[in-house]
């Protein structure tokens, strides 16, 4: 595949890996968080950890929209899908996310709710046009990457005077989540935050640009390197972070210059600003309630806001108390250190947010990397 295989080249990977191995200081540990699920996926899918020295540790962050969606919001979507005449449209990877009491969109669909898997907001708009008797609700989730598409859909619905289309908005923002990770688990939580640098988001940064990450470098002293989603992008970003840490620098650098500009996509930002406003606070699965971290529709678009249109309310729903997702997302614990991991909590029966999507920290470890946690496998590898 042109323009793709180049970024997965094994020989180039070995040369970058050799440079990282040469430059890391043996007397210290480099704890780097890749914020995005896309990075987690690339790291796991290509076995990047095998190419890194043992003292470079990658911590999988919360940048997986499916993982951070709290149960209460999923319960709300399921309740919405159960209302008369409602057709709920959702992205495919939301279908299996566990809600309260073992519920999910897939199970609600099997029980008779009209839930349809769509691949874009345009699909949902088309359904609304084609079936005027249905109340079509688009279950909007995601970071800044998917928010502009939802904004465009709302504007298109307004333009076409589509009276039967609305959005159940769960869009969240990246910088507040990075802030929450650096600020730790809140009052009473003494877990130290060990992250020394961030591999910054790829697609999110194409929208928001480079500037929003400056405070993490300037105020917190944490270097950020924005990186593409291919494994060579990630490897190069790790080398750049190692160099910053070795030099005692904390800067925002852009490895993904083929797609990310300093100020981002102005048109997309304008669409977001026109349609959405910031919520006072929003619950994140694994991170808790974060102030000014999510969006809702502006009052001018109230009729397209499913929460207002159907009077939907959140019913608090608690995760399994033994679940360590919060500590894992802050880099304070590894998946293996959670006693639910791989026992009652697997991708087939996820208990916590990190096990939900293949991009989640625990699911990625389980699906692609659990052989590393196994002594017999490690021995076999040594022999080979």
């Amino acid at each position: 595949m042109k323009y793709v295989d180049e970024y997965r080249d094994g020989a180039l990977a070995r040369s970058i890996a050799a440079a990282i191995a040469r430059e890391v200081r043996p007397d210290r540990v480099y704890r780097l968080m890749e914020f995005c699920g896309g990075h987690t996926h690339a790291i796991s899918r290509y076995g990047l950890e095998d190419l890194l020295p043992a003292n470079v540790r990658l911590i999988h962050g919360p940048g997986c929209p499916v993982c951070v969606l709290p149960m209460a919001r999923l319960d709300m979507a399921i309740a919405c899908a159960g209302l008369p005449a409602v057709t709920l449209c959702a992205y495919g990877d939301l279908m299996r996310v566990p809600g309260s009491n073992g519920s999910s969109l897939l199970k609600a669909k099997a029980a008779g709710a009209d839930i349809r898997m769509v691949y874009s907001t345009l699909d949902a708009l088309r359904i609304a046009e084609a079936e005027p008797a249905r109340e079509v609700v688009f279950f909007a989730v995601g970071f800044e990457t998917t928010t502009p598409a939802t904004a465009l859909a709302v504007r298109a619905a307004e333009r076409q005077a589509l009276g039967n289309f609305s959005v159940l908005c769960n869009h969240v923002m990246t910088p507040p989540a990075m802030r929450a990770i650096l600020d730790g688990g809140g009052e009473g939580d003494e877990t130290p935050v060990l992250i020394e640098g961030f591999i910054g988001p790829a697609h999110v940064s194409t929208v928001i640009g480079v500037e929003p990450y400056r405070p993490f470098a300037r105020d917190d002293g944490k270097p950020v390197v924005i990186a593409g989603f291919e494994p060579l992008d990630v490897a190069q970003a790790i080398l750049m972070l190692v160099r910053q840490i070795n030099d005692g620098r904390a800067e925002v650098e852009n490895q993904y210059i083929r797609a990310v500009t300093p100020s981002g996509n102005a048109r997309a930002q304008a669409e977001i600003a026109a349609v959405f406003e910031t919520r006072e606070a929003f619950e994140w699965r694994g991170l808790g309630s974060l102030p000014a971290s999510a969006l809702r529709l502006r009052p001018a678009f109230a009729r397209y806001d499913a929460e207002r249109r159907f009077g939907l309310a959140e019913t608090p729903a608690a995760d399994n108390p033994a679940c360590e997702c919060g500590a894992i997302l802050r880099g304070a614990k590894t998946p293996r250190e959670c006693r639910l991991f791989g026992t009652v909590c697997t991708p087939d029966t996820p208990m916590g947010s990190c096990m939900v999507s293949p991009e989640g920290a625990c699911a990625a470890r389980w699906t692609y990397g659990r052989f590393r946690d196994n002594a017999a496998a490690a021995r076999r590898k040594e022999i080979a």
Partner: protein
Amino acid sequence: MSLAKPIRRKLDLANGRVDLSHGAGGRAMGRLIEDVFLAAFDNAWLAAGNDQSAFEVAACRMVMTTDAYVVSPIFFPGGDIGTLAVNGTINDIAMAGARPLYLSASFVLEEGLPLADLVRVARSMGEASRAAGVPIITGDTKVVERGKADKIFISTAGVGVTPPGLALSSDAVQPGDAVVVSGTIGDHGVAVMSKRENLEFETAILSDCAPLHGLVADMVAAAGPGLRVMRDPTRGGLAATLNELANQSGVGFTLEEDAIPVRAEVAAACEFLGLDPLNVANEGKLVAIVAPDRLEPLLAAMRAHPLGARAAMIGRAVEDPDRFVEMRTVFGGGRIVDWLAGEQLPRIC
């Protein structure tokens, strides 16, 4: 006064639709069977008009299989539900190293199905069964009300005979055995997905739907008892098949990603859909596990057959109490090749 002989009206195969009378056991059903299925399958067993068909088999080890086909859409690039129903069941027989002999076919039709679509499917089945030399010798048709089925469901069963002395088994894999695939993977799944509602994309990829018993006969001749087991990696793809074999044989597998044949178009489609070709269905490919000393003759025989031209060794069985399927990626790292947790669903970003 003698009654005038009623004029037998032919079915309107161009514009007509299946209705409930076509499954009611009366004259309408008789016409449907005659004009559609007998015409398409065209053999002496069916022409005899019995509720069953008889055939002679010499004393031997036989195999039998059955499968249901519910694909959507029913027509896709490179095939349709009819070619699948014939070749899929032939392949299930062939994976035992057996020679398929006869098929049966049952149809569940949804009221309203255009007769032209039914004829097209039946003709595909007739052509596929003649090309494979495996006749459809008995069948059944039911019609259900609109909404109770999705256009057409087909169930086929097949019987076949195994060569003397050959006993392939999924628990026979031993550490050191080689893993071989017969060609590019993922073609069928991507071809079908390219025509799914809401997901249509332009592609030149055709389903690989094909009967594999000819290739299998050559493989059996070349590798003999060195052949441990064969599977056709349909739903769940190569990943599911190898995990099944690992579990049943109590071994692990190590694969080399760059040895696994994947068409560039399939890789590209999987890339933008967020899918892994290893999880995508195939309908004309097989995985064979073979003793190391029979690997070279096996590969030579496969590559000499048109359906095995791109056959490749992709890995080995290893001792592993965890029964992991591991892979060295093109990038140089290692990873597990796991089962899918549920249906393969495209990712958001």
